[in-house]
């Protein structure tokens, strides 16, 4: 998930042939991508960082898990920073109409500024960090960030504890979700989507089925047709699995081994590219035959010769993207009401039916089975026991480790 808007735009052009939902998403990315892409080209990428409107907090406030003044009662709105194509849309013709959000606004009178502005966790972090460190409102009430980033935000006390009185549906969260290693009890973060990272391949180009991750890195007939993710956690975890190590518990030595494994696959030409959000375009065009893939993405394309490996031999990776409320958010109560709304089983089912990720709310699976039996039958959305048993998260790292591993990985992949 790197390369900001360039990739957004790239995704657009290559995905226009995608069917239904994917096509709708691409159209949306175009408008955003074109505007932002222009900026990036002008060398003014920095300007986009200035799009944040700060409200100066009273003097003396520090950036330590503090609340600002809550304007929820007088300003009936929530500002929500999130990723592209991460919510339901009405149909292809109305890509910016989100039925679940509209229903929420109708129920509560709270307007939602839904901003699809996150393309990369680290990229977004560098945008909000200058505000958070100074103890200034970022302008966002809710941000959607990946699990390992929640740890980073929490280490710096950048997040506000949720007021569960406003979120009675918090009780609906599955026990496995509450047992989170980063945020036990889920007092700071509410999962937006759970998903898996696995392998997908093109059966037209790959004649012998792929069953393990190691094959992707080593099989001669896949030479030059493999694409891996440019985010450190994803690719290193895959390499660790292929080498027989546990991504949830590994040593420095094993990290080095994994990095070397990736580097070798790159220098030998086995790996064609490291991609971010745009991995699907090359995969769909047949430019890559094998790719790392996020759970429902490939199924969503609806192409029968593009198949996803539900459970590679070595196991698969699981991750979550989470809603958090940053310090000094201007509409904290409204934000909590909105999170509460999405924790209802029926709403969660409606959402997951559309975005194709694993529900994290009690009763959502049942609701999904009623709503859309076909989606509910996909093991990547309602995983089997065996998949759950073999899914691994990523080890919790210290900030220093995270920064060190990330920069070494980025250097290894030529950035």
């Amino acid at each position: 998930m790197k390369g900001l808007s360039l990739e957004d735009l790239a995704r657009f052009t290559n995905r226009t042939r995608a069917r239904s939902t994917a096509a709708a998403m691409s159209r949306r990315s175009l408008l955003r991508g074109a505007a932002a892409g222009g900026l990036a080209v002008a060398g003014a990428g920095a300007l986009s960082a200035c799009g944040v409107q700060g409200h100066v907090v009273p003097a003396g406030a520090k950036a330590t898990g503090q609340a600002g003044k809550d304007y929820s009662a007088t300003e009936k709105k929530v500002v929500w920073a999130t990723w592209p194509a991460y919510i339901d849309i009405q149909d292809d013709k109305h890509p910016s109409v989100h039925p679940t959000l509209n229903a929420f606004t109708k129920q509560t009178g709270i307007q939602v500024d839904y901003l699809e502005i996150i393309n990369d966790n680290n990229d977004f972090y560098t945008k909000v960090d200058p505000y958070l460190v100074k103890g200034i409102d970022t302008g966002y009430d809710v941000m959607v960030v990946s699990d390992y980033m929640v740890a980073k935000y929490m280490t710096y006390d950048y997040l506000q504890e949720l007021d569960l009185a406003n979120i009675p549906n918090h009780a609906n969260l599955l026990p496995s979700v509450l047992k989170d290693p980063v945020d036990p009890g889920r007092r700071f973060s509410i999962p937006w989507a759970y998903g898996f990272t696995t392998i997908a391949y093109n059966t037209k180009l790959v004649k012998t089925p792929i069953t393990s991750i190691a094959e992707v890195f080593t099989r001669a007939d896949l030479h030059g047709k493999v694409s891996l993710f440019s985010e450190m956690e994803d690719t290193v975890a895959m390499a660790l699995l292929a080498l027989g190590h546990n991504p949830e518990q590994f040593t420095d030595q094993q990290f080095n081994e994994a990095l070397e494994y990736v580097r070798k696959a790159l220098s030998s030409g086995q790996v064609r590219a490291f991609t971010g959000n745009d991995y699907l375009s090359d995969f769909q065009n047949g430019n890559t035959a094998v790719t790392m893939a996020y759970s429902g993405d490939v199924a969503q394309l609806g192409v029968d010769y593009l198949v996803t490996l539900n459970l590679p031999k070595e196991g698969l990776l699981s991750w979550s993207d989470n809603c958090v409320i940053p310090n000094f958010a201007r509409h904290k109560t409204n934000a909590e009401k909105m999170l509460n709304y999405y924790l209802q089983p029926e709403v969660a089912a409606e959402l997951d039916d559309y975005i194709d990720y694993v529900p994290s709310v009690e009763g959502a699976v049942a609701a999904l089975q009623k709503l859309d039996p076909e989606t509910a039958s996909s093991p990547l959305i309602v995983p089997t026991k065996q998949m759950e048993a073999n899914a691994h998260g990523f080890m919790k790292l210290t900030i220093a480790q995270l920064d060190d591993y990330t920069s070494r990985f980025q250097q290894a992949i030529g950035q």
Partner: protein
Amino acid sequence: MSSTALLDKSDPPAAGAPPEDRKPRRNFTPWVLLLPGLLWLILFFLVPILTSVSASVQTGNFDDGFKLTWHWANYVDAVKPYWRQYLHSGIFSVATTVLCLALGYPVAYFIAFKGGKWKSLLMALVIVPSFTSFLIRTIAWKTILADNGFVVRILNDLYILKITSKLGITVGTHVLASPGAVVCGMVYNFLPFMILPLYTSLEKIDPRLLEAGNDLYCGTFQTWRRITLPLSMPGVIGGTLLTFIPAIGDYINAQLLGNANTGVVGQSIENLFLRKTDGYPVGSAMSVIMMVGTLVLVMMYIRKAGTEDLI
């Protein structure tokens, strides 16, 4: 140069006379007229450059702030892990410039001398593609050169990709995600910048000079070498500079058409700038190295080529 020097020597009274006649009074008009331009330059050229240079010797991060510590070691960090990127930037931009010249010269020559009444139309055809965004045009190449597209299939059928892959220009049986694709994209994008100045200088050449060459028993090639080429040198130099300078800083082609082994400096700077909370100093150092490096190369080139027209 020499003629003005001669004038100065021979006519000192003429040059010195006016100040004696007129009262030396201050004339502010030129300064007022210059003001907007100067302000613009200060604000958008001088200040950013100084900021960049200053940032390159700072230490710190977003959380603790950046402080000017004259930490010159940033420059070591800006070169050591990234030497491959500098190498790629250099090779790609030189290759692009050479190819642009090789392709652009005949085109400009043809339009200038054989274009006739179609001249304007032909030049328009050269320029019109630039009306589309640079990004879109680059991404279009991803479709044209797609692995199962007809271009790649034909190249494979003719065994051309076998040869280019042996030479390290392409990788395997595909064109995309290879150094070759990056250079192709760059040549395509920068070609108009080569053709325009070439055309302007070729177009100015008096055809009677060429006729004279023929009359004096010069062959076609001799005429070109002794008359056309020297007279078009300003165009050649202008064109190569207009191509080389943006090409060495370009990273969009490498990002979209390259692979992980074709990283250029711009990509690394972008990464440091956007995705690291402590990346500003090293990123700035890399920018400064690129700016100074390009400037030195260009100065050397102009010296060597020796055109007074440009400086």
